[in-house]
Structures are given as structure tokens and as C-alpha cells.
């Protein structure tokens, strides 16, 4: 096909879009949601990559939920866990600073942990570090105290301490004595670093569990996780959302496909004379199917292009309400491009076949 003819097909497709924008808008929306699924997947993937960078394969994470534990209990846990490797306790607390919800982690080795009371009195500044997910404005105000902060993206997650820790390149202490009354302990995490055991060995995990059980801590939920397990937990949290958006996108694309097929069938009727003329000039059924396919593929990819343009609006909304940060601009992945291609094939195959059945005899009879 000559370039001029191809351009005329593009022009024709654009005219079709203009005429039937409402029908093809459905297809655009479907592709936009498909891009959202792709962006969410990428967002999760980035998290995983960051998480994997922060954790070594032989590290074990021990988390206690259920009730706040006392300082004595904390020491006992630390002692028990130190049998398995070097223990780095992480203490999570939540508070409000400048009306911004902040998360603090007071972090140190087993020894400075002893200095931490239940009121979270800050230990030595040069040895203890913490992390905040506050906005940049709040951070700059706090910077007046001659301390530096690492600002990370929103980490509203089931285990924010874990996420923040693994995302941070540098962990910095945030002063917590500004509003001591608002402190409340919510969870205690112990990370066993460089444990001389293999995390895939269930016996070792069981040993840790038995050691913790022997303390009779009366904590309802104790988790002993390997890094991979924690990553899988994250994956599960987002899986439902991904399935929801995936379903939504396929419903929208399906509706778009139905509309588009209807549109092309109408085209076959409206363009009867043109099709008959092409057959008279020597077009075979295959040529007509190719022609309809090219027209469908142009329209489909125009829809995809438009969905890329409107995507930032969706990204802004998702980043405002969602827990996963997605990028504002996204290029369609190969799988998305392939789905577009399949849509074009599905949409054009039947109308193209019907066009091939057109009899040019009508041109003479008329």
C-alpha cells in the first residue's frame, strides 16, 4: 500500500473517530485503565526492587503485634533472638508533628535499646536514627533544628516500618520529644541481621518461634518472616486492587470492541459502493480484510495514544487516594500493545469478511 493511501486511511480513521467519538471513548477508557494496571504493577515492582536491595537473603524479620510490650519483655526478646544472630530492634511509634502524621523509628543495636524507655526518650543523636514520611514543608521546618531528614514516599502500609526501613538509604532520627503526650507504642519489630541460618529452613524458623514462645509474652500474633515472605505479603495486598482494575479495563475494552465492531459493520454498509469498486478493480477478500484491519489498528492505536494523554489525570487521583505511587507518564508495555493489536484483529475480522462478500455487480445494475 502506498504511503499516500495509508495516509488517507489514517485521515479516514480520524474522521471516523470524530464522528463516533462517544463509541470509541469507551475503548480509550478501557486502555487507560489497562495502563493503570500496568502502572500499578510497575509501582509494586519498584517497591519490590527497593525492598530486595534493602534486605539480605539471610535476614529474618520478627514482628510482634497485639499489644504494646514492656521494656523487660523487649530485653527478653532481644536476648532470645541474639542466640540466632545479631539483633537490630526497630521501635515503631506514631505521632503528629505540625499536623502531619509522621512515623518514627528509633533504631539501634541491642545495647542502646536498653536506654529506650516506653516513653521513647530519644537516645544519643549520633547513634540513633529514625525515619519520617512527612511532607517536604514539614521537613524543612524541622530542619531548623540542625538535623537532616530523609523524606520518602507515602508508606501507609500494614507494616510501614518495614517499608520505610527498606526504602531508606540513610536513616535519620526525628526528634520525638516535641509532643511526648501523643506518643503511643504500636508495634515492636526485631530484625535479626546476618543470621547464621538459612531462612528457607523451616527448622530454624521453628527454633525462633519456640524461643519466643518460651518467653510467655501473651502476644496474640507473632510473625516470623523472611524477606521474601514479607514481599509476598505486599504483593497480596495489591493483588485485589490489580484484579479489580484488570476486570474494569477488560469490561471497558469489551464494550469498546462491541461498539467498534458495530461501527465497522455500519461502515461496510455505508461504504458499499467503495468496497464494490475496489473488488471491481481487483481487490480480493483478503485485501479488504487487510484494509479494514489497517483502519481498525489505526483507530485502536489512536485510542491508546489518547489514553496515554489522559493517563496523568488518573495517576493524580490514584496517587492522592492510593497507597502505591505511580508515575504520571507511562509508555504502553509490549503486552498492552499486543492487547491493542488483538482488539484491532477482533474488530476488523468479521466486518472485513463481510466486506469481501460484497458483490460489485450492483455497480453495473445501478
Amino acid at each position, binding site marked *: 500500500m*502506498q504511503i*499516500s*493511501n495509508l495516509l*488517507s486511511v489514517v485521515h479516514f480513521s480520524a474522521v471516523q473517530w470524530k464522528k463516533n467519538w462517544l463509541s470509541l471513548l469507551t475503548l480509550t477508557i478501557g486502555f487507560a485503565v489497562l495502563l493503570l494496571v500496568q502502572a500499578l504493577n510497575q509501582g509494586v515492582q519498584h517497591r519490590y526492587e527497593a525492598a530486595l536491595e534493602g534486605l539480605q537473603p539471610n535476614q529474618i524479620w520478627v514482628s510482634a503485634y497485639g499489644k504494646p510490650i514492656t521494656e523487660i519483655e523487649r530485653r527478653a526478646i532481644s536476648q532470645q533472638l541474639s542466640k540466632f544472630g545479631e539483633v537490630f530492634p526497630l521501635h515503631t511509634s506514631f505521632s503528629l508533628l505540625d499536623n502531619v502524621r509522621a512515623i518514627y523509628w528509633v533504631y539501634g543495636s541491642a545495647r542502646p535499646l536498653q536506654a529506650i524507655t516506653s516513653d521513647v526518650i530519644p537516645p544519643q543523636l549520633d547513634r540513633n536514627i529514625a525515619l519520617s514520611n512527612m511532607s517536604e514543608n514539614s521537613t524543612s521546618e524541622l530542619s531548623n533544628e540542625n538535623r537532616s531528614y530523609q523524606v520518602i514516599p507515602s508508606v501507609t502500609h500494614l507494616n510501614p516500618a518495614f517499608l520505610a526501613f527498606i526504602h531508606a538509604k540513610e536513616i535519620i532520627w526525628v526528634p520525638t520529644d516535641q509532643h511526648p503526650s501523643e506518643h503511643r507504642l504500636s508495634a515492636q519489630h526485631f530484625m535479626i541481621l546476618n543470621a547464621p541460618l538459612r531462612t528457607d529452613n523451616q527448622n530454624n524458623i521453628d527454633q525462633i518461634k519456640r524461643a519466643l514462645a518460651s518467653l510467655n509474652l501473651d502476644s496474640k500474633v507473632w510473625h516470623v518472616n523472611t524477606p521474601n515472605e514479607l514481599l509476598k505479603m505486599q504483593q497480596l495486598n495489591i493483588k485485589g486492587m490489580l484484579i479489580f482494575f484488570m476486570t474494569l479495563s477488560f469490561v471497558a475494552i469489551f464494550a469498546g470492541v462491541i461498539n467498534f465492531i458495530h461501527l465497522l459493520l455500519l461502515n461496510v454498509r455505508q461504504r458499499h459502493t467503495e468496497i464494490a469498486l475496489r473488488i471491481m*478493480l481487483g481487490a*480480493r477478500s483478503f*485485501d479488504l480484510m487487510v484494509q479494514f484491519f489497517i483502519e481498525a489498528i489505526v483507530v485502536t492505536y489512536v485510542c491508546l495514544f489518547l489514553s496515554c494523554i489522559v493517563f496523568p489525570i488518573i495517576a493524580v487521583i490514584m496517587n492522592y487516594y492510593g497507597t502505591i505511587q505511580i508515575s504520571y507518564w507511562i509508555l504502553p508495555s509490549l503486552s498492552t500493545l499486543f492487547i491493542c493489536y488483538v482488539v484491532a484483529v477482533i474488530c476488523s475480522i468479521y466486518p472485513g469478511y463481510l466486506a469481501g462478500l460484497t458483490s460489485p455487480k450492483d*455497480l453495473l445494475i*445501478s
Partner: protein
Amino acid sequence: MIQVSHLKKSYPGHLTVFDQLSFSVPAGQTLALCGASGSGKSTLLAMLCGLDIPSSGEIVLNNTHFSQLSTHKKIQFRSKNIGVIFQQAILIPHLSIIENIRLPQLYSHCDISDEWIGQSLKNMQLDGIQNRMPHELSIGQQQRVCVIRALSTSPKIVLADEPTGALDPPNANYIFDMLTTYAKINDAAVMIATHDWILAKKCSNTLWLDKEPADADK
């Protein structure tokens, strides 16, 4: 060039359009196909194009037993050897004039040069309309573009189904002259279905599909 022998076309219900029809159009000559409405002019042209199958008889086009070819071969033969002009000026509305003229090139894979198109448009007094869209032309101009398109592949056989039916006399004359000239210069066989006896007289021969009217010679 065109040889039709003992051609018969009948439809179920014992309706016979024509029977034992034989004629030939040698190279370089034109044949006017006359007859009243329903006499079978379009049916005959459809069979010569390969769009309809005769009940019996044989069609030989350019030394090829056309009626014996498969559908696919007929399409190939038609795209390379037959130029067809319709009663209506049929141009694809979303293609420019030059794209419409080049359309046969897509399917016959022959080369249609810009020089040939430019010269043909000039001969047809259609200078400078290459990039215009069909709706910008008058009906007469559109029909002349259709004639150029039909002749663009230099076909040895041209079939025209009442090409001047929707045209005023000057345009009709012009197109008839164009087709008869084309037949002579290119050694082609041209067959024109028409109601216009005066125009039919410009052709080398006339074939009446029904009874020739008494005043046909006037």
C-alpha cells in the same frame, strides 16, 4: 479481442435474458451495446467482467477463455486487462483525485506514472485538480476522472455501462470521443452500453440486445 459465442443467460423461473448471443469486437474497434431497459446490457457486461456466470456459451477475452477461469484468475485477469466505467461517477470520497486514479495500481500492481496522470488530466481538460477531493468536482469532471482511472492500467478491453447517462451532451460527446480514440491508439476493444443512438453511431458497430427500433437509423 472480445469474442462471445452462443451465450445464454437464464434465471430460475425460466426467465431467459438472451440466448445464442454471438458477437466479436476486434482490437481497435468500439461496439455500442444498445437495448431497452431490462434487455440484458448490464447482465452481459457483468458476465464480460466475470461478475456473473453465463448459463451456457463461451467468452474469449484477449485470447483467454475467460468464462473457464476460476474466480481468482478472473479477478487477476480483470484487474490487468479490463477497464470498467460505470453509469455513476464512482470515486472514493475520502481519497484525492490522484489517489482515486492510482487505485487500480494497488490491485493490478502496474505502474501508473505521474506524467501519464498529468497528461491524461490535461487531455481531459482537468488540469490542476490532482489534489482536490471528489466532492469539489462537477459530475462531468468526476466521470472524466473515472474514465482516466479505467484507462490507467492501459487495458486491452474497456467496458462502459452507460457512461454518459448522467452527463450533459458536451460531456457525453467528449467521453465517447475519448473512448473511441483510446481504442484506435491502443488497439483495444471498447464496448459501450448506451441508450443514446446518436452517440452509438460514433462506434464502429452496434449490437442490439432487443429488436432494433425502426427509427434507429435516423
